[in-house]
C-alpha cells in the first residue's frame, strides 16, 4: 500500500535557525509529492509540489524541498525560520491512478514551533 511517513511529530526551533522537516514515501506511490501547511485554526494550503523536472523545488515563504529518489525522501527545509512559520506541516502524495482524481495520502503531520 502507498504510504507517506513524516518522521517527526514535533519540531521545536529558535527563530532564525534552520529547519528540516522529514518525509519519506513508499516506492509504490506515484512520484508526485506535495507539502501543505496548516496555520492555527485554518485549512491547509499548498506550500510546494514536485511533479517532475528539477529535484529541488522552491515554494512559498522561503521553503524548499528536495526530491531524492534513491532515499525515497522529500524533506522540507528553510534556512532561517520566523515566528510566523509556527504551524503544522503535511507531506502528501497521490494514490494509485496518478493526479487526475486528486486523492492524496497524507503523512501524520509535523508541528513546527518557532520560539523567540
Amino acid at each position, binding site marked *: 500500500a502507498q504510504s507517506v511517513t513524516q518522521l517527526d511529530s514535533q519540531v521545536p526551533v529558535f527563530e532564525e535557525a534552520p529547519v528540516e522537516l522529514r518525509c519519506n514515501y513508499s516506492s509504490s506511490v506515484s512520484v508526485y509529492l*506535495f507539502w501543505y501547511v496548516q496555520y492555527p485554526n485554518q485549512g491547509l494550503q499548498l506550500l510546494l509540489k514536485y511533479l517532475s523536472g528539477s529535484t529541488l523545488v522552491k515554494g512559498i515563504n522561503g521553503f524548499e524541498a528536495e526530491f531524492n529518489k534513491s532515499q525515497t525522501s522529500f524533506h522540507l527545509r528553510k534556512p532561517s525560520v520566523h515566528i510566523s512559520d509556527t504551524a503544522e506541516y503535511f507531506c502528501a502524495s497521490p494514490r494509485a491512478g496518478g493526479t*487526475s*482524481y486528486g486523492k492524496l495520502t497524507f503523512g501524520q503531520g509535523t508541528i513546527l514551533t518557532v520560539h523567540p
Partner: protein
Amino acid sequence: DVKVTQSSRYLVKRTGEKVFLECVQDMDHENMFWYRQDPGLGLRLIYFSYDVKMKEKGDIPEGYSVSREKKERFSLILESASTNQTSMYLCASSSKRGPNTGELFFGEGSRLTVL
C-alpha cells in the same frame, strides 16, 4: 481569489442528532473531498466525489454519507452523531485538468463536538 467555503466553523451537537456539513467551491472543480483530521493521525479521507451525483467511499466512510446535487456543492451527513465523530472536518476540491491537477484546495474546516 479562489475559494472553498465551509458553512460552519464550529458546531456542537448531541449524540444521535443528524448533522449536515456544507461545502461550496467557486473554482468549477470536478473533484470534491471530505477529510477528517485528528491529532497524530493526519488527514483521513471519508468520501470523494468526481462528478455531480457520483461518489466513492474513502478510508473511513462508516457513519457518514454525502450528497452532491450540484457541481459546486458537496455535503457531508452524519445520520446519527456519536461522540467518536468529534473532530475537525475539512472539505477540499481539485481539478482533473490543467497545471494544478492533483492540487487540493481546502476550506477552513468545521470543528464538530458531539456531546
